[in-house]
């Protein structure tokens, strides 16, 4: 019978918390960057101008169809060779996950935008709005509400995918957990604690999101 002993793990809790902090920093960076990138990619993809829509489509497809670990290695080991730039683990990770989640967010934005009835475009055009004004004032505000659940889902996915950065020695929660496991010879306890940290954090965020969603629904703007 295995004898659980969490004491050595808790005595190294400083390391784990530092790792958790880094995970949050990376997730927040990639999330905010990814939302901006995703919106721009979606708008470009939906543009009637082919020189905008085609490249956007290619970027989106490439990043959706290649494994995130390959993308990470490519940015970390490959990009410095081509561009002669200095790559830190954080920079490579932030770039990879910004563009990668941007590609997924772009598809969510696009689906949300095209789900808005044509009549909304027409009514806005008929009072003289330009394409950009329609998008900003009429279409996006409605689309974002419809997209909210899939956005949340994607963000949670993103947070979990960032564990891959441990492979390029960025000191995220998983990387730190490995260190602690080797130090304490208590891998079972360490990874149990780490799983619980993800579990509680993501559950808490999901709970907040569900509440916000209910509030959106209650403000009556959902139904036509």
């Amino acid at each position: 019978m295995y004898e659980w002993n969490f004491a050595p793990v808790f005595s190294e809790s400083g390391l784990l918390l530092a790792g958790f902090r880094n995970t949050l920093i990376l997730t927040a960076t990639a999330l905010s960057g990814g939302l901006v990138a995703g919106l721009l990619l979606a708008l470009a993809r939906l543009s009637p101008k082919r020189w905008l829509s085609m490249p956007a489509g290619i970027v989106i497809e490439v990043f959706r169809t290649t494994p995130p670990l390959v993308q990470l290695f490519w940015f970390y080991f490959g990009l410095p060779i081509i561009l002669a730039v200095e790559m830190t683990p954080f920079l490579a990770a932030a770039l990879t996950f910004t563009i990668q989640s941007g590609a997924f967010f772009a598809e969510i934005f696009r689906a949300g935008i095209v789900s808005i009835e044509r009549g909304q475009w027409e009514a806005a055009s008929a009072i003289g709005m330009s394409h950009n004004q329609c998008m900003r004032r009429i279409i996006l505000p409605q689309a974002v509400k419809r997209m909210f659940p899939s956005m949340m889902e994607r963000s949670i996915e993103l947070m979990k995918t960032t564990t891959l950065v441990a492979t390029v020695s960025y000191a995220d929660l998983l990387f730190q957990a490995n260190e602690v496991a080797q130090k304490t010879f208590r891998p079972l306890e360490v990874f149990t604690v780490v799983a619980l940290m993800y579990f509680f954090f993501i559950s808490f965020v999901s709970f907040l999101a569900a509440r916000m969603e209910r509030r959106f629904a209650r403000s009556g703007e959902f139904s036509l």
Partner: protein
Amino acid sequence: MTAPLLSLKNFAKSFDENQVFSGVNLDVQPGDRISILGASGSGKSTLLRCINLLETPDTGTLEIGGEIIGNPQRTGKARYRERDLRTLRQRVGMVFQQFNLFPHMTVAGNVAEGLVTVRGVAPAKARERALAELQRVGLADKADAYPSRLSGGQKQRVAIARTLAMDPEILLFDEPTSALDPALVGEVLGVIEQLAREGRTMLLVTHEIGFAYHVSTRILFLAERGIYESGTPDEILKNPKKPITQQFLAEHQRFQF
């Protein structure tokens, strides 16, 4: 005679192989109230939508106040830039069958939106104007409600107020009462009649033939890919000369008492 307010010359539109109409010419003078009748699929909506360029006509020129909109090409198809569309839509307003209110904005927000976003009017001023327009359609008390809380008739009246707030010189109505319960039709027709009495220029697609008879200065009957017959309400609705018009009206009067 002064230039007509709106003039269509040799308008044509097709969707793929389907020629909806061709060779349509129409002059609209200030104060004209033109009702457009015709069977389903005769191109009433398409004609109206070509007038404010929600659809691009294949050929023809569109003049407003004597000014040509867009750049006619040698092929006969004009090119319209976003600036042309804006010029046109400042002067031509449209009311839709499905209302198309903005669900994420309050009633007053809907009416003020064009003023703020397109005209750059200060929000407080725009709201004041919106309230005045809502007053006109009898909905001042709903200013802060969301559209989802309104009845169909109320929604359509808000949509009319939204259009009026932009001070268009010409109003286009595409079956404004067709999506409504019969009991709610009257309140919307009442607002349109009021606008007619004020001397507004309007083009109205409708199946309410009695209403068309009372408010119109002219009736266009669409059939056979164009304006099949046109004239005063008495000429067209009481004494139609041509067979398809006669048949259409007979069909419509079958269940009248």
